[in-house]
């Protein structure tokens, strides 16, 4: 049991009629914070719903903590913040949390302390008695986050947890996610906010139209970067030699940009330019931001 990865997905495909929402998704998340990044309609929400058993995949399968998707054994150990975070509007925030304590099978004696703790974490300590229907959107999302954190679940699935939050709220959520990681929980974070993912995720998958186009640790994904080379006398052969290292682009100032080059490849690229007879004046490695990487991957 201890050896089972927290989240495992094997070749999951989900079709809605002719739309392919997820195509052959395979994941293995053992620990830490996993960022699932993609543009609108990429299939992020579909993936989370499959992990929860709310939606059945067309093919493929997997497990959470070694238990099948949607089984009670798995759901007992998962906290979930839905994309449409809506809770019983006629209940007070405390009552919503109590309901989820009961559904999650938390001992009744612990409810009150647990609810107080959660309300404090999500910054609703003074609004516990207010009806959810009177909450602002951001407050409802905070409540949803609280529901997901109830009972210290081992796996927390967050579907765009900051979509309705102000900058302070976004910062709070980052702190909450970091605290979860410290506690040893595994977090699956859906997002299209790159900064959010960059700041808290240990590993990332980038999805587009249901397909994972890149997957790995953040360091892996960002290892490839670009370099600006200012050189004169670069022949056509010289350019062809450089093109083997990455995508070539002419900068406005006459420099050449090689995109997607590996850091270790830069000296070789310079050497090949020199070998072709060019005179190199400057070599400026540039780190690609996650955003550039994201846009480049989606542009392909």
């Amino acid at each position, binding site marked *: 049991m201890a050896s089972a990865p927290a989240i495992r997905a094997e070749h999951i495909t989900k079709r809605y009629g002719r739309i392919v929402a997820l195509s052959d998704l395979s994941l293995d998340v053992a620990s830490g914070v996993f960022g699932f990044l993609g543009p609108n309609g990429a299939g992020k929400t579909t993936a989370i*719903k499959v992990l*929860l058993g*709310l*939606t*059945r995949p067309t093919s493929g399968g997997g497990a959470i903590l070694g238990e099948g998707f949607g089984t*009670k*054994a798995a*759901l*007992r150990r*998962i906290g*979930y913040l*839905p*994309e*449409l*975070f*809506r*809770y*019983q509007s*006629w*209940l007070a925030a405390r009552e919503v949390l109590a*309901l*989820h304590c*009961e*559904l*999650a*099978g938390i001992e009744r004696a612990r409810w009150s302390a647990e609810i107080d703790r959660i309300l404090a974490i999500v910054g609703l300590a003074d609004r516990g008695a207010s009806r959810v229907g009177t909450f602002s959107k951001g407050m409802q999302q905070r409540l*949803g986050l609280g*529901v997901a954190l109830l009972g210290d679940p081992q796996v927390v699935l967050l579907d765009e947890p900051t979509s309705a939050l102000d900058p302070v709220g976004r910062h709070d959520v980052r702190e909450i996610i970091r605290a979860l990681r410290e506690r040893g929980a595994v977090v699956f974070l859906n997002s299209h906010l790159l900064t959010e993912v960059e700041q808290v995720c240990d590993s990332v998958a980038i999805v587009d139209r249901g397909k994972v186009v890149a997957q790995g640790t953040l360091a892996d994904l960002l290892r490839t970067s670009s370099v600006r080379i200012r050189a004169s006398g670069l022949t056509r052969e010289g350019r062809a030699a450089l093109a083997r290292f990455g995508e070539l682009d002419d900068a406005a100032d006459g420099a050449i940009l090689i995109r997607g080059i590996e850091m270790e490849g830069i000296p070789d690229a310079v050497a090949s330019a020199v070998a072709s007879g060019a005179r190199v004046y400057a070599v400026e490695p540039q780190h690609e931001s996650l955003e550039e990487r994201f846009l480049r991957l989606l542009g392909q």
Partner: protein
Amino acid sequence: MTGSLVVARLLIGEAARRRLLLALLLLTLVVIALTVWGFSRINELTPSGQPISEAQRRTIASQLLILVMFMFSWVISLASVFVAAPAISGELESGIAAAVLARPISRLEYVVGKWLGLLALILAYGIGAGVVEIVAVNVVVGYLPPRPLEFLAFVVGEGVVLLTLALALSTRMSGMVGGVIAAILFGIAWMGGIIGGVGAALGNQTITHVGTATKLILPTDGLWRGAVWSLEPAVIIAANTQLGPAVAANPFFAAEPPPAAYVVWAVAWIAAVLVLAVWSFRSREI
């Protein structure tokens, strides 16, 4: 099944907080006040310059009560439809269901919980309002229908049939669509019962079979006949039966109770539609 009880309690809590219970209570009080006033006029009837006889008074009261209870049965039926029709679909549309179903609770427990909650509401309303109405009439004109308990069982049974149907529709369609469909089916079943009665009156086999079929497909009208029969004093049954087969077409009269097999059928129908609802909800995407 503790999950079911949580869901049922939540549904009842919602009805209370949203003041559905209060609204039903107030409207029922209005209806009862009106019937009490109406029945009290019977005592003052003096058609030939003299007070009417005891037997006449009982006859008038029994017929009036059947009319009032007919309306009551429609109110229970339509209330069942409109409370049950959005019970699941509304939570799916708003997204409330996603948070609940991501907890260790099965789809079976969820549907059964909704059904139990609705059942409790309909039982409380149907029995509560029905008893008060019967007692009020008894106090005002001293008339008690012959089989009040059977009457309540038949009328509430009608509500349970419709709430189960509307809940099953709610697993797949929006509250508005499911509500309209269930209400129309209820109306069709009622007309089917009358048509079947006309067939019996005319001695036409085909038309009678149409009526029987509708009574089986949606057992509301069949149960209503049982409710009418429970309200009829023996003298009324005897008098009407003398009129020959034509009375079968009258929706406010039943010469005999539905056979026991029909009651069994109605219970089996409810169970089957509930199973269908669970199956339908299990196989859908959230």
